[in-house]
């Protein structure tokens, strides 16, 4: 499969000695076979388990994929910000920029037969699961071709065929649901796992501990992933949790603390967690991450944190920049090539938005579709029950 470490060393001097032509480099960036060894930013910290090693093998292709995927997610969220301000997106809009490494690292470690469920900061998870930009923007604008046909909105993206179970508005609810997915996986004897994502705010929810207890009792293949961005809406973690060491909060359930801004650390942790969960039941991963935006578009995000803190994280820990640096230092692509990719992505996003704008509003009859799977032909009513009625098939 991958070339050995020795071969990588061999290639390195070659790249230094021979001036690169662009054709050589292009070959390199789709290189699936050359092994590059990277080290995570910090070692993992384990709770009731032996943490995995911090050295990970990757390939140029994977690095480029990480870059492209995270840049797409970043661009999508920034575009969503503008669309919200232009009132094309209504209601609530919770953006994920800064946290991309969690979505991308996780996908790299699992398959589409594994399940993911998350809360309302779900746009990038959706993309990671194979959702398209057009589906995302169309849904955000409440149009017919959205991933939930315009009926869900920002907080309710789903993609069941690739194991993405949403998109949930009530803080904490997705955790028992995720453990329920694991229950079904075990019941059906699948060799797959379920990842339930939640934030540091949700980490204090009682229902999480109730469901985790059962997951541990019954050895369910459930992986709880705390995306700790350190603020539950406007409340800092230390003001909400007596113990903000979320990876330890499972007590008898093992846990791992992970640098969530490092896609490779995330990948390694998720790979480790999947192996663990299939053999030994639940495990908690705490991703130390950060959101650049406020809690939602209604929150400036600067009343409870300093601008210095935000720009500091952007400077020191940005997940996209980490990958860019790795790509540049391994001569997989030039700065210009990476900038060109970003330009390309910007164009893709703009085109997706343009396409989304063309999508029509849902047909009025959609008000009454999907209330039930099986409606028995009962009547349902609009606001004026004598004026608007429908039969639920």
């Amino acid at each position: 499969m991958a070339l050995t470490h020795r071969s990588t060393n061999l290639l390195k001097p070659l790249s230094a000695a021979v001036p690169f032509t662009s054709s050589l480099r292009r070959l390199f960036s789709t290189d699936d076979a050359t092994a590059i060894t990277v080290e995570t930013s910090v070692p993992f910290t384990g709770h009731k388990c032996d943490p995995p090693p911090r050295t990970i093998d990757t390939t140029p292709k994977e690095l480029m994929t990480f870059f492209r995927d995270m840049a797409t997610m970043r661009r999508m969220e920034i575009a969503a910000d503008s669309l919200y301000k232009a009132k094309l997106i209504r209601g609530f809009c919770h953006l994920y920029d800064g946290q991309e490494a969690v979505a991308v690292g996780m996908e790299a470690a699992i398959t589409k037969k594994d399940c993911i469920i998350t809360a309302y900061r779900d746009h990038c998870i959706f993309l990671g699961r194979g959702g398209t930009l057009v589906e995302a923007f169309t849904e955000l604008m409440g149009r017919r071709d959205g991933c939930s046909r315009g009926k869900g909105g920002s907080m309710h993206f789903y993609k069941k065929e690739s194991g993405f179970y949403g998109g949930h508005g009530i803080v904490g609810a997705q955790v028992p649901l995720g453990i329920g997915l694991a229950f079904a996986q075990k019941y059906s004897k699948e060799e797959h796992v379920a990842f339930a994502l939640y934030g540091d705010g949700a980490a204090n929810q009682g229902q999480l501990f109730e469901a985790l207890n059962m997951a541990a009792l019954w050895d369910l293949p459930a992986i709880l992933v705390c995306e700790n961005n350190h603020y539950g809406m406007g409340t800092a973690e230390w003001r909400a949790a007596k113990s903000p060491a979320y990876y330890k909060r499972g007590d008898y359930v093992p846990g791992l603390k992970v640098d969530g801004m490092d896609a490779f650390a995330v990948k390694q942790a998720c790979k480790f967690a999947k192996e663990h969960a299939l053999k030994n039941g639940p495990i908690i991963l705490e991703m130390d991450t950060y959101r650049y935006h406020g809690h939602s578009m209604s929150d400036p995000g600067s009343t409870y944190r300093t601008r210095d803190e935000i720009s500091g994280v952007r400077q020191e820990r940005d997940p996209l920049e980490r990958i860019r640096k790795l790509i540049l230092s391994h001569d997989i692509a030039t700065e210009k090539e990476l900038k060109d990719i970003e330009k390309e992505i910007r164009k893709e996003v703009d085109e997706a938005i343009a396409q989304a704008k063309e999508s029509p509003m849902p047909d009025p009859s959609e008000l009454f579709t999907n209330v039930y799977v099986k409606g028995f032909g009962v009547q349902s009513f609009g606001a004026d029950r004598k004026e608007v009625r429908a039969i639920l098939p």
Partner: protein
Amino acid sequence: MLGIVRGRIARGGVNASSLQKIRNQSLIYASSRSYSSASKEMTVRDALNSALDEEMSADPKVFVMGEEVGEYQGAYKISKGLLEKYGPERVVDTPITEAGFAGIGVGAAYHGLRPVVEFMTFNFSMQAIDHIINSAAKSNYMSAGQISVPIVFRGPNGAAAGVGAQHSQCYAAWFGACPGLKVLAPYSSEDARGLLKAAIRDPDPVVFLENELLYGESFPISAEVLDSSFCLPIGKAKIEREGKDVTITAFSKMVGYALKAAEILAKEGISAEVINLRSIRPLDRSTINASVRKTNRLITVEEGFPQHGVGAEICACVVEESFEYLDAPVERIAGADVPMPYAANLERMAVPQIEDIVRAAKRACYRSVPMAATA
């Protein structure tokens, strides 16, 4: 119809209430002599904020608890400035754990404090509903009067704009069904001030259903209402607009819609009487029945789901008490019988519009439009 409830305000102590009586007397004189008829305006947000402030100032047992109520100044800024004024012991920021903090609030109320527990929206009250019903509503009864629960659960209720299925439900009917609870739904700034003060002073658990879209709306407000002793009676509806042809009952945001519908109907020669329920439980059955006995026709309006809704109860009580007075079937306008969709056009269909109220009123007055064919 502003009511300063004199002498009935339970202020915990004979001296306080007699002082109150004297204050009120002098205030009546003051208001009749010194204040001009030019009224000030106040937003519902400021009305709620000032009511909280005044009640916290008057009674040290009153404290506020909820998510982002303190340092963040309130998710919707209703508790703005309170942390600074009263400190973190009385303005308590909680983790995002409704079942936990609602229970804690009820327990504090058992032991004599007067909590005002905020739900960021009432959708999240479902996480705490066991405590609202089983721990709060039923306690006074089960303990034969030993354990009273002077708690207020407040927050925005019902649909906002584009917030989707899990953030748009109206809980008036569910809470209104429970004996032991009092359920209030203010509309105007006057309602907000008077009813919140009444709720905080009330010895029983009160569910206080606000509306996010009304927070920024301004209403004229008189000096009486601005006084810190102002209070509205619980269980009394208000006739917002008198009329003689048809009665329209509504609460919260729908009161505004009903008033606009009444304007449109007036142009077509139909005089509508608009009742602002103010209180879902106790329901002011006598005001409603008196009105229907006068007009002989009734439209009930609410934002929530139609089945087992507030309108269904109003209809039943009118049929029970004023059947012979009805000249037309009772009409119900309510939210659509579906989860709230996100898309703007579908959302518009899922919530009552002014034209729905007008149409129903016309039907009740036999000025009907032919019924639409079933979809």
